């Protein structure tokens, strides 16, 4: 039994404190095992499915998938043994085990449907073992593609964010900039960046350059829009207070309006991230000769659908990692907000 120390916040002058002492929570023993054993059970199921369905597959493919399941299974058993000794791990496992187990079960179902009963036409729907094998065989080129996608995305995204913040702040703060800038923003902004591809192909000196510009354009619109509205909607009383504290215009913009607009700015950054992923993949598919988008098209050309799915999985991991990073940054910047959505 572990008793949490009682939280006490000193109260300065008899006034009621909003913080209330939190009663120590008592965790029931026995309950954690149910969560801890979920993943090993799911792994057993997946292994059984694989032993049965894998007979129709190449030996090299089945082996790597066996090892893969084995590693997850081994790790989950190890953690299940360790978890009674560490409450942090216990909480973490209670949180994550059901979803991981569900993922493993989904792998099993996938294998039953594809390699097992062969319900879906080949070669378009390989089983998980085949996809894993493609991923391992092509790891060099997949890694290289991911790296190139990251380079392209980060250049385009950062360019779009920087320009978007500057134009958004100007349009939000200065009436003159709003008068001239808003019509352009309203007129040009909603055009999907990918619609500019025909023009970009003609005008731009290189495919990479045009891809960077297109991604930047895709990011620029939502970032500008949300930044401008955030700045323009800064509570007037914050500005009034700052003025009576002796604030200059620089202080009003950088220390009041921009922090006040931060929640909005982050919404723009997230929207921009979504459009930048889309534009990145399209640009890589039609123009740029590298990156994950290009790799998907190339593998499809050879009818190697295992590689297509491998690339899609890598893309999912890649994009959601970037999303997580931006969410973490937001959580750091917006610690002052209460009740924000977690990623």
């Amino acid at each position, binding site marked *: 039994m572990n008793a949490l120390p009682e939280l006490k916040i000193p109260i300065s002058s008899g006034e009621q404190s909003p913080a209330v002492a939190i009663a120590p929570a008592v965790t029931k023993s026995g309950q954690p095992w149910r969560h801890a054993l979920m993943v090993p059970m799911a792994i057993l199921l997946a292994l059984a499915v694989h032993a049965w369905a894998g007979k129709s597959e190449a030996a090299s493919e089945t082996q790597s998938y066996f090892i893969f399941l084995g590693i997850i299974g081994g790790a989950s058993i190890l953690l299940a043994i360790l978890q009674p000794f560490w409450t942090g791990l216990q909480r973490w496992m209670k949180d994550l085990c059901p979803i991981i187990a569900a993922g493993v079960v989904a792998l099993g179902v996938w294998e039953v449907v594809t390699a097992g009963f062969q319900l879906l036409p080949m070669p378009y729907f390989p089983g998980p073992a085949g996809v894993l094998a493609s991923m391992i065989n092509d790891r060099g080129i997949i890694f290289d593609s991911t790296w190139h996608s990251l380079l392209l995305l980060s250049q385009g995204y950062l360019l779009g964010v920087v320009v978007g913040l500057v134009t958004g702040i100007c349009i939000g703060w200065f009436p003159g900039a709003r008068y001239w800038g808003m019509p352009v923003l309203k007129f040009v902004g909603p055009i999907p960046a990918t619609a500019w591809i025909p023009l970009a192909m003609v005008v731009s000196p290189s495919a990479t350059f045009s891809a960077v510009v297109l991604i930047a354009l895709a990011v620029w619109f939502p970032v500008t829009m949300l930044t401008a509205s955030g700045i323009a909607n800064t509570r007037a009383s914050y500005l009034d207070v700052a003025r009576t504290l002796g604030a200059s215009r620089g*202080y009003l913009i950088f220390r009041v309006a921009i922090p006040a607009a931060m929640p909005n700015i982050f919404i723009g950054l997230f929207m921009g991230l979504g459009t930048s992923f889309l534009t990145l993949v399209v640009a890589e598919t039609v123009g740029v000769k590298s990156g994950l988008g290009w790799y998907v098209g190339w593998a499809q050309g050879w009818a190697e659908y295992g590689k297509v799915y491998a690339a899609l999985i890598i893309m999912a991991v890649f994009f959601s990692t970037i999303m997580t990073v931006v969410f973490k940054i937001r959580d750091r910047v917006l610690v002052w907000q209460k009740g924000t959505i977690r990623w």
Partner: protein
Amino acid sequence: MVAAEERAISVEGSALRVDAVRKEYPSPLDTNVRTLALDGISLEVAAGDLVSIVGPSGCGKSTLLRMIAGLEAPTTGELWVGSTPITAPSAERGLVFQDPNLFPWCTVRRNIEAGLVARGVLREKRHEVDEFINLVGLDSFADAFPHHLSGGMAQRVALARALINHPKVLLLDEPLGALDAFTRMRMQDEVLRLWEGRGTTMLFVTHDIDEAIYMSSRIVIMSPRPGRIERVIEVTLPRPRERSSREFLQLRGDILELLHFGHAG
């Protein structure tokens, strides 16, 4: 002992002077029609005085305060701090609203030092930040964000934030209006303590007559539509004042009478 007495406004030693101020607004419905918010407002506040403005809503109390703060300009008339005309907001006239308006992205400490940062003097005056955090008794909340504070604490931060600039005049626009009755009475003492300790000239808008009598040395009573000064009453009750003393209640009755809420006869 007579508590209330009308008094001619003295000319010397005034920290703040409002001279024949008139304020018109364009009507929100028809821009050709102009609404008269304030008319013929003349007022002087002596240095170190604590003057409250009382009146029903719509009498232009807040507008008057915003003009003194420099956030709005009068249609006609002049406003002076000492011998300087008021043309724009300045750190020498602090303003505290009913809503504390703390910057939610700043901790208590950062909120309090905002005025020093805005004036670019944080480096020289950093030592004062702790002094002001301590002055309003929030040492243990220095690193808390505003959404963790109660209404009274937040308003104390707002007071410290305004006072750290050592304003010549502190303008308070119903600063305790949103607090519950008990916190409110405690905060009245808190404001009085700050006033007595620092000698800052304060102009205090309230619609609570008890609060006005308890705190101020003069009460300006305003009437609405258009906002005019009805009467200025001097409060000579000795401090600390007794909220339920006979003189206090007598004065309260007189003021209610003036505002047409008293019983006839």
